[in-house]
C-alpha cells in the first residue's frame, strides 16, 4: 500500500551527516513531538534542501512517513533566527534551549506548547537586556507544562504556607521546605538555600506577572542563582545533566 506524504511544522534541533551526502536530523514538531528525518542528498551544494536543514531553523516539512526515519521531500524555512546565528553567546544559549526542549519532548506526543514556548523565546532573546531572565522563564514554564511545576508557596512536606524567610529548595522534589520540616528532611537529596529575593523572583514568574519584573531591579547574579536552582531540578527530573549546561556561562 502506498503511504501518503505528510506535512509537519517544527524546529530543527540537531543534524548529523550520514553516508556520502545525506543528513539525518531531529525536529520538534507540533503534532508528533520529536521526529527523526533523513534528507537524501542534502549535503550536495546543488540540493534544494541543503540550507534549510540546519539546527535552529523553524521549517515546514513535507515528508514520507516511515517506521524508522521519515524521508524528506520538501522543506521551506519559516524563520532562521539570523540574529542568534550571528552571535556566539546566543548560539550557545539557543543550543541549551533546544536541548532542554528535546529532553522534555517525546516521540509521537503532541508538543505544540513546548514548540510555541521555544519559538517565542528564540524570536525575542536577541532583543532582551537580560537573556538569562528569558531563559529562566522558559525553564520554569517548560517544567510546569510537563507536570513538574515547582512548589513555591507551600512547604513540600507539611503543606503549610511558607513565611517570608530563607528556605531550602529540594531539587528532587521540586519545591521548598519550611524551616521546621527542613530539620527533619535535610538529608533527603540535594538542598539549596534560596534567598528571599530568589523566591520572590520565582513567585513573580509563576504568577506570570512579567511586567512586575521590571520593578525588581534585577541583576544577572540574582537570575543566575535562580537558574542554577531550576537547572538542578531539571537534572533530577530527566536523570542526566544536559550537555550544553557546561558551555552556558551562568
Amino acid at each position, binding site marked *: 500500500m502506498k503511504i501518503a506524504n505528510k506535512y509537519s511544522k517544527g524546529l530543527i534541533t540537531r543534524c548529523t551527516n550520514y553516508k556520502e551526502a545525506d543528513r539525518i536530523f531531529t525536529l520538534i514538531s507540533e503534532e508528533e513531538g520529536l521526529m527523526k528525518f533523513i534528507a537524501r542528498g542534502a549535503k550536495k551544494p546543488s540540493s534544494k534542501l541543503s540550507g534549510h536543514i*540546519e539546527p535552529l531553523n523553524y521549517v515546514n516539512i513535507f515528508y514520507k512517513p516511515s517506521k524508522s526515519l521519515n524521508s524528506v521531500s520538501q522543506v521551506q524555512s519559516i524563520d*532562521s533566527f*539570523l540574529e542568534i546565528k550571528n552571535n556566539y553567546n546566543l*548560539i550557545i544559549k539557543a*543550543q541549551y534551549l533546544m536541548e532542554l526542549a528535546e529532553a522534555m519532548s517525546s516521540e509521537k506526543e503532541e508538543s505544540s506548547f513546548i514548540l510555541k514556548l521555544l519559538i517565542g523565546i528564540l524570536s525575542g532573546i536577541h532583543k532582551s537586556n537580560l537573556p538569562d531572565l528569558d531563559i529562566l522563564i522558559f525553564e520554569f514554564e517548560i517544567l510546569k507544562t510537563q507536570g513538574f511545576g515547582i512548589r513555591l508557596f507551600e512547604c513540600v512536606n507539611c503543606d503549610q504556607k511558607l513565611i517570608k524567610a530563607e528556605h531550602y529548595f529540594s531539587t528532587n522534589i521540586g519545591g521548598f521546605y519550611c524551616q521546621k520540616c527542613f530539620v527533619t528532611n535535610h538529608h533527603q537529596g540535594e538542598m539549596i538555600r534560596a534567598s528571599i529575593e530568589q523566591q520572590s523572583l520565582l513567585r513573580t514568574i509563576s504568577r506570570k506577572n512579567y511586567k512586575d519584573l521590571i520593578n525588581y531591579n534585577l541583576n544577572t547574579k540574582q537570575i543566575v542563582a535562580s537558574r542554577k536552582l531550576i537547572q538542578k531540578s531539571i537534572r533530577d527530573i530527566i536523570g542526566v545533566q544536559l550537555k*550544553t549546561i557546561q558551555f552556558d556561562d551562568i
Partner: protein
Amino acid sequence: MTSGRSSLPLEVQKLIIAFSSLPGIGPKTAQRLSYFVLSQNKDDTLKLSEALREVKENLDFCKTCCFITNDKNSDYCGYCSEKDATQICVVENVIDAITIEMSSIHKGAFHVLHGAISPMNGIGPEKLKIEELIKRLNNGETKEIIIATNPTLEGEATGMYLSKIISDNFQNIKLTKLARGLASGTDLEYSDFNTLSNAFENRTSMD
C-alpha cells in the same frame, strides 16, 4: 547451543565489535563486514590489517598544523614547513584541508581544528586544536588568518569563537572568512534565508 552473537567464535565477536566502533557502522553492517572478511582471501585481509597497522604506527598529527604527518618526532611536518606561514587557513577537518589544497587556490599554510564547537554533542573549544593555533600565532610570523569552517551552525560558532580570541590577542593579524552565499548551480527559489542574507550582504559590484 546458545543463540545470537554469543555462539560465534570469540575472534568473530571481537571483529564485529571492532567494526561497530567505526562511524556510520551499526551492528548489522559490522556483522556483514566481518563475514565478508571471513570469506575474503587471506592476502587481501592481511593487506587491510597491515594498512591499518601502518597508519597507526607511522602516522600522527603534526604538533604545529595538526595535519597528518609521518614525522612523529619533529615539531613541524614536511607539509607545514614548506608552506607560506604568513597566511593560515583554519579548517575543521583534514579532509577540508585536502579539498582546498586540491583546488590550488590557497598557497598558504593550514591549521586543522579536528572538529567544531558543538555544545549539544559536548564539544567545547578546549576539545579542539585551538591552543596549538594560538601557540603558532605567538611566533609572530602570521599576517592573515582565513577562517574556513563549514557554513553550519557549529562551524559558524567555531569561526566566531576563533575571531574573538584572535582579535583580542593578536590585533596585527588580519582576520578573514570564506564568503557565504549562493552556490553555483542552485536555484534562487529554493535558497534558505541565511544563504540569501549572506548573498545580499556580500554582493559584488559588476563594474
